[in-house]
């Protein structure tokens, strides 16, 4: 079996395992390349019909192209799309320039997600994070239990052997499921190419710049690049000397911001 097929089969096994175990689950779709790949794999796992909702956490600060892409494919793929927004905080004027970025991420992303989890009584959330994105994400499990406060107890994670993923214990309120954990940025692009997965135009170079990682407009900086199609992006990543999330402002405030965000339930 070739490298990409091995990765794909591992992911599909995890997705099906999560659905069997929890039934009441949802997938997080940021419209970025990773969660779009995850969505693609869910379509494959369930023969084209994803049997659970697709949640888009909307901070109100996303790129217009992302909203457009979201709506186009939600329709094309017959997704049960749910928009999660922390309207109260958005109305109160929360934004990346009002105080620390970590507070904005916590309110508009983490808390919006928490609201969705409790509103829909979700037992598990599928998220497209990968180990090679960030040192903190490198420590995650495929099935990661969260307690009542939604906290990630990174100092005492369950053992995870041979694709036997933890069952729900009394103190677990919900699980984060990470079916793409074993993929690298390069794998995602090569898989995108092989499967011909549609991708937001923002990833392709315009006027010498492109976005390598997508988030909210004020906190995302494009990188210098001439890569204007998937092949050129693959070539660029192979020879790149900078980190994928180099353009993401929330990672920069403090070396441990990502750890703090994730401990609180950030995706």
């Amino acid at each position: 079996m070739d490298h990409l097929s091995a990765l794909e089969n591992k992911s599909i096994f995890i997705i099906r395992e999560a659905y069997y175990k929890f039934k009441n689950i949802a997938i997080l779709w940021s419209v970025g390349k990773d969660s779009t790949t995850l969505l693609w794999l869910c379509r494959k796992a369930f023969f084209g019909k994803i049997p659970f909702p697709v949640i888009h956490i909307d901070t109100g600060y996303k790129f217009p192209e992302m909203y457009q892409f979201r709506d186009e494919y939600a329709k094309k793929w017959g997704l049960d799309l749910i928009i999660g927004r922390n309207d109260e905080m958005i109305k109160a004027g929360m934004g990346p320039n009002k105080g620390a970025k970590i507070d904005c991420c916590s309110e508009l992303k983490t808390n919006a997600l928490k609201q969705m989890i409790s509103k829909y009584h979700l037992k598990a959330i599928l998220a497209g994070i990968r180990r090679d994105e960030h040192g903190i994400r490198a420590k995650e499990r495929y099935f990661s239990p969260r307690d009542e406060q939604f906290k990630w107890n990174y100092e005492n994670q369950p053992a995870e052997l041979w694709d036997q993923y933890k069952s729900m214990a009394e103190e677990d309120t919900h699980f984060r499921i990470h079916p793409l954990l074993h993929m690298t940025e390069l794998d995602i692009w090569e898989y995108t190419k092989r499967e011909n997965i549609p991708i937001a135009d923002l990833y392709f170079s315009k006027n010498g710049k492109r976005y390598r990682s997508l988030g909210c407009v004020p906190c995302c900086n494009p990188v210098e690049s001439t890569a204007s199609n998937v092949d050129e992006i693959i070539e660029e990543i192979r020879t790149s000397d900078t980190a994928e999330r180099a353009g993401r402002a929330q990672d920069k405030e403090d070396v441990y911001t990502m750890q703090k965000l994730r401990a609180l339930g950030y995706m």
Partner: protein
Amino acid sequence: MERTISEVTGHSLPIVIVGHVDHGKSTLIGRLLYDTGSLPEDKIEEIKIASQQAGRELEFSFAMDHLEEERQRGITIDIAQTFFNSSKRQYVIIDAPGHKEFLKNMITGSSQAEAALLLIDVFEGIMDQTRRHSFILSLLGLRQIAVIVNKMDMVDYSKDKFDAISTEITQILKQLNITPSYIIPISAKHGSNVAKPDERLRWFNGPTILEALDNFETLVVEEKPLRFPVQDVYDIDGKRIIVGRIEAGRIKKGEELLILPIDEKTKVLSIEKFNEEGLERTETGECIGMCIDKPAVRGDVIVKQTSGGHEKDYKVTKSIHANIFWMGDNIYHKGDSLTFRCATQEVEGRIGNIYRRFDPATIEVVEKDAREIKAAEIAEVEIALSRPVAVDSFIEIPEMGRFVIEDKGHPVAGGIIL
């Protein structure tokens, strides 16, 4: 132009780095990444800043130890995985913690590896975790192991000191039926023999770590009897599709198969994958759907019928003879109920016999016919199940010969069927 990994070999090799606390596991990985140019510039910058904040020189271990607590205390708490490329292939490097209390994290990491580097500090010598980790590696069936003798700079690159450790560790590994592929003297701190040789170790004729890694082999899928544990059953447009991953062997359309444990014959009507029509056969390791002419449920294991006159090549049993390693914090008392999970099978049971209890730190039997198993111990047991399961011995079909034991939703032990 560099070629991509999938073009080179098709597979990446997962390697776990184990050994006693402070013998330099995280530092070695940081050094390996640094010397092979695998750390992006801004990551090196981040490590420099964090090192300064912690009042240290450039601390290579920070490349892996990412938690604030890990960096402050100078220890690894949980496994981290990272990727790097040599000129030959891609590697997944798994950094395992060396403390006894984080043993379940070490086991989690090691269970995903196909090869291991066992690190020993030449100055401190062989310690508890050196033996404990060796024992775990042997139980997990890891056979490609290189012993890395670190901190050679602290003994003035002495060949005598290296030889003494080599002899001692070879003896210990022999007890566990492991023959190390290599024993390599290095200094992770100075980069000697990691990615490049060092003049001060010119008396050593073997490979650098990077060369040793490139000589390891990736797992080869062998032709074995079919094992298809049913994962779930979906109703897709009125069609009943059973899904699962082919753990061993392969399936062809039209074949007669057998559903275990009920022992019922069935026929493969079609093989189903999204957007793929008319599939005739499958590969080992593939997640597939299939339509068959009999009902099946999760936990069933589908195998091939044994042709007349031949001995059955599958086993259905309620009694499991196994070696287990206890990862829970609690003491297990003989007879306490637990959940046995092997592939997609999940059955209640209890440990009926504890034949032998080992202390992995000394690799010695502490008790025969025991009544309890303590945290971090290894034991040879018999598990009595409430319902029959289809299993294999680990040596024959590893995917169906390894299991996890859960207690109230918590994984407390892993095991290998003998």
